[in-house]
Every structure is written in C-alpha cells, then in structure tokens.
C-alpha cells in the first residue's frame, strides 16, 4: 500500500519526528497508512500507538535506519 503521508525524520532533532507524527495521526483515516523514517526505534511512540488503537510495522535496514508503517487498528 502506498502511504498517504511520509515523515522523514532521519535528519531531524528529537522530538521533531514524534511531534510531526502525533500531528499527522489526526488526518489518518481508516485504511490509510503513515510512513515514518527514522534512525532508531521510537519506543515512546510505540507505547502511544498501542494505547490509542493504532498498529505499526517496523523494519530495520542494515544501516540501522528504521521504517515504521502506522495505521488504525
């Protein structure tokens, strides 16, 4: 599935990627996907997603960078 929105946080200072992601969740409709690109696993975000009815799929590349795909459960 092509993501509706992509947030590339690899060159951002924390907590900017988290801030943008939380803002983008507002616009995420049923069946849509948000793609987040980071340099490490966002554990605080995982907790927030799990507790608020979102699912995520994380893939870690060989260079340690991370792709997180988020959608409503």
């Amino acid at each position, binding site marked *: 599935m092509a993501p509706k929105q992509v947030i590339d946080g690899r*060159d951002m200072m*924390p*907590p900017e990627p988290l801030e943008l992601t*939380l803002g983008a*969740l507002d616009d995420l409709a049923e069946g849509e996907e948000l793609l987040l690109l980071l*340099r*490490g696993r966002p554990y*605080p975000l995982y*907790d927030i997603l799990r507790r*608020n009815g979102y699912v995520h799929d994380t893939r870690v590349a060989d260079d340690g960078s991370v792709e997180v795909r988020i959608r409503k459960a």
Partner: protein
Amino acid sequence: MQPGLSFEQAPPISVPYRFFLTAPLFGIAAGLFLLWQGPAAIASRWSPLSLALTHLLAVGFMLMAMCGAMLQVLPVAAGANIWRPLLVTRLTHAGLTLGTLLLVAGFLAEWPLLFKLAVAFLTVSLLFFALAVLLALLRTPAVGPTIVSLRIAVVGLFVTVILGATLATAFGWHLSLPLTHLTHVHAAWGLGGWSLLLVAGVGYFVVPMFQLTPSYPAWLSRSYAWALFCLLLAWSLAWLPDPRPQALQTLLACLAALLPLAFAVVTLRLQGRRRRKMVEPTLLFWRLGAGSLIAAMAVLLLQQLLPAVDAYVGTPFVIGTLLIVGVFMPLISGMLYKIMPFLNWLHLQKTGKPGLVVPNIRDMIPEARMFMQFRLHLAALVLLLAAVALPVLVYPAGLALAASCLWLERNLVTGTRNFIRFGEELKAAVARERQPERPAAA
C-alpha cells in the same frame, strides 16, 4: 494531535528528576570541600581527604545522575520497563544520598561505625538497582550494541559495588585485606567496567540521534564492551598470583586503555561529520569529554610504560581528574541538557489537547546558561589539573567546580519549574475551552 492520546507507559517524571536535582548538590559540596581543605585534599591518592573528595564526585554526582538517567533512558531507548520504578527509585535515591554522606563522613572522621552504616545503605540500594535494571535489560526484545553495552555495564556495576562494599567493610570491621590492590581493582571497574561502558552504550544511541552524525562503526560498537570487560577481568585476576605477572598486567592495562582511546577518537570524527553544523552546548560537553578521555588514556599508557610517570605522585590525580571532572561530569551535564527538555516535552503532551501547542524543547532551559556552565566547568578542569603542579590553585579550582555545579543545579531547577509552569498553563487553557459559554448579558 489526536484527542486523548494516552502516554501512561513512561515512568513518572519525578523518577529521574529527583536524581538529576540531587547530583549537582554533591558537586557543589566537592567544590566547597576543596576550598575548605585546600592542597591537603589532593596531596595523596590514598589520604582519607582525597578518598572523601573522590566519592563525593564519583558516587554523589556521577552515580546519582547515572542511576536517574538509566531509569529513564531504558524505557525510551530500549523499550525496557523497570519493575516497580517508583519503589526502585525511592530505595536507590535514599540509599545513594544517605550512603554517600555516611561514606564521606566515615573517611573524614575515620569512625568505623560510619563505614558500617554506609555499607548497608549503598550495598542494599545499589544491588537492588542493578538487579532491577539488569532484569529489564534481559527481558527487552530490543537488540543492538546499546543493549549489549548496558548489560555488560550493569555487570560492571555489580563488581564495583561488591568490591567497594568489601573495602568499606574492611574499614568498618578492621579486617586484614590487601586494601591497595582491592582499591585499584574497585576504581578500574567503577570508572571503566561501569562508567565507560555506560557512556559507550548511551553514546551509540544519543550521538547519532541528537547530533545527527553517522552511526558508530560496527567494528567498534560490536566489540568494544566485550573486549574492555574481558581485558578488565584478566587484569583484575592478574593481581592474584604471587609473584604478580607484572609484564602481562602492563600489557593488559595498555590494551584496555587503547579501547576508550579509540572510542573517543571515533566519537570526535563522527561529530566532525554531523549533518547540521551548528554548535550547541551538548556538542561542546561531548567534545570536552572525548578530548579528556584521549588525554586520560594517554597518561595511563605513559604511567604503564614509563617508571618516572608511574612514580610521580600526581599521576593518579591527573588521571582521576581527567576522567571524573573531564569526561564523566561534562558528559552527564551535556546529556541532562538533552534529557530534561525532552522529558518535559514528552510529559507535557499528556496535558495538551488538540489545538494546544506544547512549548518547544528549546524553551525549557535557556541555551546561554548552558554555555555559561560549560565555561565554568572547563575552568574548573584546567585549574584542577594545574593544581597538581601548583597546589595553591586548588582554591580557585574548588571555587570554579562549585560554581559550575551550582550553575548546573540552577539550570535544572529552571527546567523543572518550566515543566510545572507550562503544565499549569496547558491545564488552564484546557479548562477554559471546556467551560460552557456564558449567555450574553440581557
């Protein structure tokens, strides 16, 4: 932001903050101690005054801040949740605070009862802390060099605490033990097996993330912790045979010194390749820490290889100052200036609601004040090192150290107050929006 997002997983903000706000107070005490005792405080590594000063900084400042950071960093960086964090926090904080005061008083008064009480407080609280942290680290599904380094570092903390407890027990109960050898091994594990491995584990995570550098090379991050641990273990065991294999022990010490040297050089090179070329306080604190680590390991190598350097009475003081005041205190200060604003922001998100913007992390602690503390700390380090040759400089050094830690405390109090103030402002804004509109006056 989504209405009503839940953030409850993070430990309460009071968990790390009580450690962060207590640590600089011991640093201030160490500076005042230098002013009080003068050159006598640094005359010999083995004097009770010197041991009191060392523990004010190594336990009261360093370990206090490290324990607080560990309790907060584990859930954020590794997804590792501590069992009953509030219980662990209360026990560790109380044990560390009272234990450090009793230990320092024990060195000053040379009264065995104080050592006995210090052993009880420090051993129980730190072993409980280490066990809770180790369990969290073993249970997390996260992998990678940060987790491996932190696990090995906690084992290093166990070894340090047990050796420290043995030494303090010997003072308290007048036991006949090889105190000099045990002290060497205790110091090596405290500064190397615990502190340097903790720095490495945290560094693999925070340097690329906060300073936007490339990741640490795999040849370093995969082997550093294991190699340093094994070399320290072999070096420690080499104290046991009689006669001691001195050549082998020298070789092990040199190899062990080369590892942190490599870590520091790689850190500086990575920072040179950061993607945003701005200079901010944490970058300066990390540069000072890495530079001091290179200097400390260079002096350690010279001490091992040149008898004249080994025989010089000021050598242990130079190495100790470079490591404690030059490496660990700056790194801790720099990290606190990242951790506290981030935690403020994360916890304030719980209070907010759609349409309300949580203040930027740059508004939590003024950056100019962080730079000021950096300058004060640099002055303290330079003056302390110069005091080895010119002991009278210990007075301005003590003053600068107390001022640096006072400035750190002031900055952290500002951060805490801003958390409270911004939280109240957000709550008031939420309450205003919930109030039903009043009917217009007739």
